[in-house]
């Protein structure tokens, strides 16, 4: 029987009530007293020298309070990259300054070079039109090959467009080359991992405010990690003392990575708020979101897979160019390297992996982590080349994968790409996938499709990812400039209800429901008396936020540790109340008892005693019942899965429809299966979107052609099927207290190769010798490939 509450219960979400009644509070819903409005002047050219900016007319426009340009921020710091990557020759990566407002040059369409603050947003918008900017247009650098070979630079001061040339694992380079040279068979594939725009439905927004009497700043902003934003603004950009800046991310309407990062608009509204001594609000319109939110993916890769005569994998070798855009966004250098190269062994016992990544500056929007961040790119390359190899060798694609899977008795398993997988069972996932997807019934479904003049294809995929980001000591060695622990405080109030302050920040993941399930289970109390506090640096101890499927695995572990401390202290208090040793006290169903007796006190009675410490051993136990824990994981967690997709292709038009989509995932233990399933479904939609619909298109002048929902094809309800999602085959994570792995990104990681593999299978079934089509697999591309 499924449980009603606690760990494993499909509890409906408490946060839903406010969202369903229109009473959620997103940043743009907030209006502060005396609030003013910021609107940005943004470059219409991709690359240009700022000769002059004349703001005098704008300053005289009605309602205008101030106009800022890059000159105003020339002396403050840049927005830094959070991860130092060294090139193969040991040289550190190039790190050009990313200013609050463009100064000297504009480097992509949408790059902000000025901002107007006015009484109303309309007045600010009108005044932006009155700014006279003399920007001398330069040739745009858009194509990565051209960027690497030319003498036209995005950042003149570094004299190259190559940010780094990274090798992983460099010591294996020669052995990998030899394995490929001498192999029985080598399959080669060149592919593009298409650039995507995250497209959280809530556009970014920020409100800066300043209290002159105390010197305190407050930033309300659309953030996945308010503490990180505070740290970046304080330590690197504006130099505001950390204890004088509060960052509040209220309800956040989706992020998918794009709201991890600190953006210049946040610094601008804070600086403007101080100058005007009034709150300053900025809300992006959707076009600004397309132009300036950090984009995702954009890799061009050549992958080679060497196999022996039995189909055993001998080596993977990849050569990738990764577009980082015009500036380094905070995680942009980690995404194509340590979140990508380290996963290039997949679920397989392959002994050799070598990955080369060249990161390239271009006159396009910055590129950073987007749902999956590096792991979708790795999975796509691996799982597409395996499918191609199976076809070349005449082997069944499922059997070829099974032949090379890491087996359950091999854990902990040291992968050839440098990670230690702690637990998994990839054959069990594949078995379950074959059952749920009804692989046995495919032939009949194909025959039915063919009867209707359609081609039907079946695609499969096995993925592994690294989540629970991340062990600080390990990532420190790898170049991370931050620790990636998380923190939680459990406060038991005198009347017995609880406030749990967490460093993770939900932007759709249901933390307000799931975290109480964990605490309630441990304490044996009703989750309804437990409230989650998040998204406000003044209320919670610290936190690194929500991304990389880390909230439960890392912050949830901190919640467990803090709750354990609560239990330990509560047992001491209960022992005193019951005149027994704390070691004899047991906790069950919210009641502390002396083992072997009928003496007991309730959790609520202990809480009251902690705050009204009469007849209390103050010499041994402090009053109060509040504990904090910081948790730093010992390893990454390794979710894995087996996915299947069936598509129909209309040979007349090239249109692909997804008929069946099956995701079988190993997330370890599951706290709330309803939420987990929802996370997978959303990821599947984004992955299918990448595979079939979505593309971010710049022309040769660096103009973004897909800058609205009229041009960028978002998956809509009628583009998608119902999904079959299963997570019954979990193997618990071995190194965190809940045995959980993380589920937020899996769907977006596992689905793109599955869909493309299915399309290729459909075309092959129609007698077409098509081995690859780049994403998005649009009708035009399919039709062209079929000719």
């Amino acid at each position, binding site marked *: 029987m499924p449980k009603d509450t606690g760990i494993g219960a*499909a509890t*409906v*979400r408490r*946060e*839903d*009530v*406010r*969202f*369903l*009644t*229109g*009473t*959620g509070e*997103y940043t*743009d*819903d907030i209006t502060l007293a005396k609030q003013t409005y910021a609107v940005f002047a943004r470059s219409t050219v991709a690359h240009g020298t700022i000769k002059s900016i004349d703001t005098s007319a704008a300053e005289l426009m009605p309602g205008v309070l101030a106009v800022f340009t890059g000159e105003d921020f020339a002396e403050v710091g840049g927005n830094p990259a959070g991860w130092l990557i060294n090139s193969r020759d040991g040289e550190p990566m190039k790190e050009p300054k990313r200013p609050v407002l463009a100064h000297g040059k504009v480097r992509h369409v949408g790059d902000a070079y000025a901002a107007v603050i006015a009484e109303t947003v*309309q007045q600010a918008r009108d005044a932006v039109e009155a700014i006279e900017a003399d920007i001398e247009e330069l040739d745009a650098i858009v194509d990565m090959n051209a960027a690497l070979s030319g003498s036209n630079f995005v950042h003149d001061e570094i004299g190259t467009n190559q940010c780094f040339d990274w090798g992983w694992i460099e010591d294996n380079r020669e052995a990998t080359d030899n394995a490929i040279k001498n192999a029985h068979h080598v399959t080669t594939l060149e592919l593009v991992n298409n650039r995507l725009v995250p*497209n*959280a*439905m*809530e*556009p970014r927004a920020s409100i800066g405010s300043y209290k002159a009497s105390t010197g305190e700043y407050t930033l309300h902003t659309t953030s996945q990690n308010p503490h990180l934003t505070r740290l970046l603004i304080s330590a690197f950009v504006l130099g505001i003392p950390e204890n004088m800046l509060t960052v509040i991310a209220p*309800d*956040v*309407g*989706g992020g*998918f990575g794009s709201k991890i990062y600190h953006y210049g608009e946040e610094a601008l509204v804070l600086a403007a708020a101080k100058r005007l001594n009034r709150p300053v609000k900025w809300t992006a*319109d*959707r*076009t600004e979101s397309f132009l300036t939110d950090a984009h995702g993916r954009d890799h061009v890769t050549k992958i080679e897979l060497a196999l022996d005569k039995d189909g055993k994998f001998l080596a993977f070798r990849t050569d990738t160019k990764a577009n980082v855009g015009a500036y380094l966004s905070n995680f942009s250098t980690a995404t194509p390297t340590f979140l990508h190269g380290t996963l290039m062994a997949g679920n397989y016992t392959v002994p050799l992996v070598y990955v080369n990544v060249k990161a390239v500056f271009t006159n396009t929007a910055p590129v950073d982590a987007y749902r999956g961040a590096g792991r979708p790119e790795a999975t796509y390359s691996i799982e597409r080349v395996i499918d191609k190899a199976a076809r070349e060798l005449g082997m069944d694609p499922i059997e070829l994968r099974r032949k090379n899977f890491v087996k359950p008795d091999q854990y902990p398993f040291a992968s050839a790409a440098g990670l230690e997988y702690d637990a998994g069972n990839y054959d069990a996932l594949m078995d379950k996938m074959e059952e749920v997807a009804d692989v046995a019934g495919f032939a009949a479904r194909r025959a039915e499709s063919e009867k209707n003049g359609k081609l039907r294809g079946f695609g499969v995929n096995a993925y592994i990812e690294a989540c629970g980001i991340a062990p600080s000591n390990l990532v420190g060695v790898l170049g991370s400039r931050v620790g990636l622990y998380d923190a939680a405080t459990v406060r038991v109030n005198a009347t017995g209800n609880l406030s749990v302050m967490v460093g993770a920040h939900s*932007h*759709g*993941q*249901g933390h307000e429901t799931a975290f109480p399930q964990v605490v309630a289970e441990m304490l044996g109390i009703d989750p309804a008396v437990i409230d989650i506090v998040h998204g406000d640096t003044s209320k919670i101890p610290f936190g690194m936020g929500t991304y990389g499927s880390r909230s439960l695995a890392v912050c949830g572990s901190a919640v467990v540790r803090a709750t354990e401390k609560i239990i330990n202290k509560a047992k001491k208090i209960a022992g005193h109340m019951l005149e027994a040793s704390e070691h004899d006290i047991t906790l069950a169903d919210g009641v502390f008892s002396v083992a072997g007796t009928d003496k007991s006190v309730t959790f609520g009675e202990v809480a009251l005693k902690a705050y009204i410490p009469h007849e209390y051993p103050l010499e041994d136990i402090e009053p109060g019942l509040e504990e904090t824990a910081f948790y730093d994981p010992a390893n990454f967690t390794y979710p894995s899965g087996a996915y299947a997709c069936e598509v129909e292709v209309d040979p007349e038009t090239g249109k692909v429809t997804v008929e069946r989509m099956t995701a079988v995932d190993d997330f370890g233990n599951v706290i709330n*299966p*309803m*939420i*987990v*399933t*929802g*996370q997978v*479904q*959303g*990821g*599947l*939609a*984004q992955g299918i979107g990448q595979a079939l619909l979505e593309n971010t298109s710049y022309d040769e002048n660096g103009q973004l052609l897909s800058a*609205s*929902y*009229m041009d960028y094809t*978002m*998956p*809509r*309800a*009628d583009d*998608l099927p*119902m*999904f079959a*999602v299963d997570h019954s085959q979990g193997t618990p994570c071995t190194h965190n207290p809940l045995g959980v792995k993380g589920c937020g990104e899996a*769907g977006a990681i596992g689905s793109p190769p599955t869909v493309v593999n299915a399309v290729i299978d459909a075309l092959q079934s129609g007698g077409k010798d098509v081995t690859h089509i780049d994403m998005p697999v649009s009708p035009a591309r399919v039709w062209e490939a079929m000719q």
Partner: protein
Amino acid sequence: MTKVTMTVNGKTVSGDVEGRTLLASFLRDDQGLTGTHIGCDTSQCGACVVHVDGVAVKSCTMLAAEADGATVDTIEGQANADGSLNVIQQAFQDHHGLQCGFCTPGMVMSAAALLKENPKPSEQEIREYLEGNICRCTGYHNIVKAIMAASGQDVTAIAAE
């Protein structure tokens, strides 16, 4: 400035608006009804759907002045009189038809309009009707399921959770 008067969620309200003020902005900024969201600038996303004289309208596509004299219903007026969730809202919660919640008001308002004209829509009819409402979180599976459940259809055969 033009004075407009309309009935919003059963109450008569009025305000002075510029000719270019959109209904969505009037509701959010003048009336403080921030449940109606603005997610795009091309009338594509549907986060701003409200009912004007009983018809689903993208309130970013309509000037406030055009709604002068109209009856406007927004997400804030959808719950039952006792404050409990209405059938559609309850189905969205029961079937996890929302995650970040930003598209949700528009989804609920569109669903209400759909069920008014088609009380027992098929899965395909729901998907086609929602073509003008974009959700980035859910993959639509649970939204479709919730609307089917709200219309009294048995959804137990649709994948678990």
